[in-house]
């Protein structure tokens, strides 16, 4: 018993920190041995336990004391060199701040599951599905899937709550929600907190209208009314019954665009205009998304393959042009995520983030390491003295590391503040979206933990090398020579030079990559407007959701442009479903049928827009051939299977018809056919370019369809946009408001903005990106400059004696200057070469794997301003950074330098 206790005691005694060990180790051991008999005799087994407990408590206390000492010492040293500390904290802070911000995007939006959804990993989503297709998926694949639901959203509803009396109806608000098939809630596994959810057995077409509300709606708009279930609510002018309230935090399957109201597909079209025109039986109206719950053991791949087979069969049956698309027809997205990003994109986004974060933090750390190395030379005496009086090398290394860790932690704190600030700026930004978006990038605890780990790791990793070098030295010679002694490992390929080359390379890479993105974005997102955009106003009107019947709404829109045009000062009026210069989403697949000597031409990723008469004229956009829509086209009855006239842009003309004349030619989509009546010049708009791999970006092909009574009957989710161009701008707006009010005082005019504001909102996102990447690029540049200045200053200090001798032997100042500059110059050239090719390789790889940045990178790589400008900019900064300390070398007085020995 006693000997066991003694063995443990001895073990623990050896574990004390080195310095304590040196002084007291033997005594503690001895005392234990001397006292153990007495302890055993007096206290028995409890005494032995007490002995062990006592020493095990003491151990961490001693370590903590030593750490506190280290921190106090580090604080004092940093306090004594505030310049070094400030630069270190600032550069690390910037780097870590960028890392924290970028990682919160990942941790908040990309990684997390959508709240409240059961077993989200087994839920997948297929976008762009028509309702008949969904029904086949649901009924044909019962072995692979345990449930399939369809939804369409986000969709706006004009919602008002009826009060106790008929007069106390609240003002209608535009609330976004989902149109869902009755299986929706059971498939995603969400239960009602109150009332019930939809049920295919209960909710059938022809039933009285019902709605399901989110918890947020119930809290914020119904004051948590306990009797909410069963109350009636007005939705788009129709009365419906509330049947249930959702659980807390549940905002639909894609909570980044929150859904607050859920309406079943069994609702009458009068309440849900999206369901008008027998949409549920149209294979071509692919506005739904299918939610698929995989059966246990079914892999994503097999599900995708099965859906692909079904879809191809259905495509063949319905003569959908997509049937001719080669490769995979069906791509499943995760269904239970905040943002349903395709699985292949996640690693790309992650990789880009890691590369950027790695470069930024890496450069900041290398900079710190470099400065520490430079300091190490001046601190050699201090280190040598401490070593010679018995400090262990391990302890000294730890002490130097503590300094770095302290810097990194303070830098981390600065970085986190920065991240919070950027997040708050980002939140205030008004995004050019018709639907609400919940873009929360405030750092979460996971991002903060990650940041903390990054700063700690960087502090330790990049402190280690300088600490090792600083403590590895020949004591006696150092003490004799002081700060001028040569440090080992600082030869041509020494650590410092390698670090410096890496830093220059990294900085140039950052600068170039940031530049590619900025110039590329600018190139691909430029907006050209032929007139003063302050003079065009855009207003939105949504009469169907204000309770109009389809007939009444169509009549209203047919008359509105003429009424407005008669107002004084108004020059042009046009209707459109989507505001001009919005980011283009090319999602449709259309085909030009085969003709004599020409095979069928299928074009993917086509953008479809629906516009009214006079659209191009009001935007001063030229038509290259044919004509644009006029009021006759708006009267075409689509339901009778008429061939719709379309206008296409140049890009579409060349993709569908090559060099042939497109006028009068046909384009088909599913069972619908169009006839080309005009060709418009491309309207450049943000994200309007597409590019695959390293091809030069091209404009997205656009097919313009005419607004007809069908569109008037159910306006898009942003309402119908009325474009009003006038001579005076703002003054005409009052007249416009009065005119609309005289037509119907109950119509709501919303989202009033000038074209300039519209374009501004769209480009705000792009500007933010530009700012972000610009900051990264500039940051790299500044750090590289500081680093180079440090290296050169160090080199000058190290070669004082040599320079003194050279000057004593007759070297001129210019020669000395050149000598010093040559060294820095070589590093810059080497680093620039690596950085240049590194950046091009990274840009090529990134643009090859993703279409997201592809067009920007390809446009950026070919920009001579970057290819020559960036290295020149870096070189001039670098030379400047070398020159300042190098000039000091020329001022060395040989007499003083030589006397110092």
């Amino acid at each position, binding site marked *: 018993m006693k000997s066991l206790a003694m063995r443990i005691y001895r073990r623990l005694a050896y574990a004390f920190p080195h310095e304590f060990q040196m002084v*007291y180790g033997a*005594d503690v051991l*001895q*005392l234990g041995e001397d006292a153990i008999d007495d302890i055993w005799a007096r206290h028995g087994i409890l005494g032995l336990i007490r002995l062990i407990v006592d020493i095990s408590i003491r151990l961490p206390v001693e370590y903590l004391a030593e750490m506190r000492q280290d921190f106090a010492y580090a604080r004092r040293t940093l306090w004594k060199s505030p310049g070094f500390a400030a630069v270190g904290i600032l550069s690390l802070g910037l780097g870590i701040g960028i890392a924290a911000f970028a990682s919160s995007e990942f941790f908040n939006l990309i990684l997390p599951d959508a709240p409240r959804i059961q077993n989200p990993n087994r839920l997948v989503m297929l976008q762009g599905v028509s309702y008949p297709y969904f029904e086949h998926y649901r009924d044909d694949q019962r072995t692979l899937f345990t449930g399939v639901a369809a939804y369409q959203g986000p969709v706006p509803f004009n919602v008002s709550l009826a009060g106790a009396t008929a007069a106390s109806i609240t003002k209608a608000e535009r609330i976004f929600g989902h149109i869902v098939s009755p299986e929706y809630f059971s498939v995603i596994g969400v239960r009602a907190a109150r009332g019930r959810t939809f049920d295919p057995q209960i909710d059938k077409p022809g039933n009285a209208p019902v709605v399901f509300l989110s918890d947020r709606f119930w809290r914020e708009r119904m004051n948590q009314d306990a009797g909410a279930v069963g109350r009636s609510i007005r939705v788009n002018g129709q009365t419906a019954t509330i049947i249930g309230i959702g659980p807390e935090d549940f905002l639909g399957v894609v909570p980044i665009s929150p859904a607050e109201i859920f309406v079943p597909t069994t609702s009458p079209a009068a309440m849900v205009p999206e369901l008008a025109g027998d949409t549920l039986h149209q294979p071509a109206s692919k506005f739904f998304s299918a939610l698929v719950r995989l059966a246990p053991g079914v892999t994503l791949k097999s599900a995708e393959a099965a859906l692909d087979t079904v879809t191809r069969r259905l495509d063949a049956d319905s003569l959908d042009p997509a049937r001719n698309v080669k490769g995979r027809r069906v791509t499943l997205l995760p269904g239970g995520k905040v943002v349903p990003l395709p699985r292949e994109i996640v690693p790309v986004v992650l990789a880009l983030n890691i590369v950027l974060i790695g470069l930024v933090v890496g450069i900041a750390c290398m900079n710190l390491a470099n400065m520490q190395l430079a300091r190490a030379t001046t601190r050699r005496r201090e280190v040598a003295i401490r070593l010679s009086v018995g400090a262990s090398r391990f302890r000294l290394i730890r002490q130097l590391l503590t300094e770095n860790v302290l810097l990194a932690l303070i830098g981390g704190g600065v970085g986190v503040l920065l991240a919070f600030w950027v997040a708050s700026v980002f939140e205030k930004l008004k995004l050019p979206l018709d639907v609400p978006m919940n873009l929360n990038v405030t750092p979460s605890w996971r991002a903060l933990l990650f940041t903390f780990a990054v700063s700690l790791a960087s502090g330790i990793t990049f402190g280690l090398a300088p600490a090792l070098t600083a403590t590895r030295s020949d004591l006696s010679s150092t003490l004799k020579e002081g700060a001028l002694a040569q440090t080992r490992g600082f030869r041509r390929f020494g650590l410092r030079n390698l670090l410096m080359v890496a830093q220059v390379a990294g900085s140039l890479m950052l600068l170039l990559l940031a530049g590619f993105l900025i110039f590329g974005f600018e190139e691909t997102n430029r907006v050209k407007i032929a007139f003063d955009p302050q003079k065009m106003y855009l207003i939105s009107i949504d009469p169907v959701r204000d309770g109009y019947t389809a007939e009444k709404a169509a009549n209203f829109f047919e008359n509105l442009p003429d009424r407005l045009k008669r107002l004084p000062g108004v020059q042009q009026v046009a209707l459109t479903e989507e505001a001009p210069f919005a980011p283009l989403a090319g999602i449709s697949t259309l085909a030009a049928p085969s003709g004599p000597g020409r095979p069928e031409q299928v074009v993917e990723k086509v953008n479809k827009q629906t516009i009214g008469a006079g659209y191009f004229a009001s935007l001063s956009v030229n038509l290259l051939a044919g004509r644009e829509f006029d009021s006759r086209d708006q009267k075409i009855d689509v339901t009778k299977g008429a061939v719709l006239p379309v206008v296409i842009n140049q890009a579409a003309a060349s993709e569908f018809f090559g060099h042939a004349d497109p006028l009068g030619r046909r384009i088909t989509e599913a069972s619908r056919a169009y006839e080309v009546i005009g060709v418009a010049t491309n309207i450049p708009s943000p994200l309007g370019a597409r590019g695959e791999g390293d091809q030069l970006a091209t404009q997205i092909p656009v097919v313009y369809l005419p607004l007809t009574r069908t569109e008037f009957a159910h306006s898009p989710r942003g309402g119908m946009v009325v474009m009003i161009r006038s001579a005076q701008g703002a003054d005409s707006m009052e007249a416009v408001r009065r005119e609309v009010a005289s037509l119907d005082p109950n119509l709501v005019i919303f989202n009033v903005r000038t074209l300039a504001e519209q374009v501004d909102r769209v480009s705000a996102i792009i500007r933010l990106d530009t700012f972000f990447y610009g900051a990264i690029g500039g940051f790299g540049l500044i750090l590289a400059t500081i680093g180079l200045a440090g290296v050169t200053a160090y080199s000058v200090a190290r070669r004082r004696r040599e320079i003194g001798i050279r000057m004593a032997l007759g070297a001129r100042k210019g020669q000395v200057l050149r000598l010093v500059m040559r060294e820095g110059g070589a590093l810059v050239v080497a680093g620039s070469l690596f950085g240049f090719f590194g950046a091009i390789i990274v840009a090529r790889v990134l643009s090859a794997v993703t279409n997201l940045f592809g067009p920007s990178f390809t446009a950026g790589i070919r920009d001579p301003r970057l290819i020559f400008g960036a290295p020149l900019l870096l070189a001039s900064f670098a030379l400047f950074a070398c020159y300042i300390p190098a000039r000091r070398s020329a001022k060395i007085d040989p007499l003083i330098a030589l006397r110092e020995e």
Partner: protein
Amino acid sequence: MPKPENFLPLKTNWFHILLSLAAGEQHGYGIMQEVLDRTSGKVRLWPATLYGSLKRLIEEGLIEESSDRPARELDDARRRYYRLTRLGRRVLDAESERLHDLVRILELKRAEAH
């Protein structure tokens, strides 16, 4: 030199150690034994705590390591000896004074109560 009052009230361990050194220099084992004897076995300074306290006392300047060795026949060459510094002695005096005052006040109160 820091004021002795800054150290008051003294930690029990520190007080016992200073008290053991009041008579003259002593090594760790001696201090432990003396405290045990003095308190008839009630207070034991456990080894690691004892040396931890000695280290802190040295850092604070209350005791120091002694280079004088006791008479040869009593000397234990393996051990370090410690002794009070001037500050240590003054701290011990101040603490004794404080305790003494406390006891006096206590007795006065008791006398009044009777």
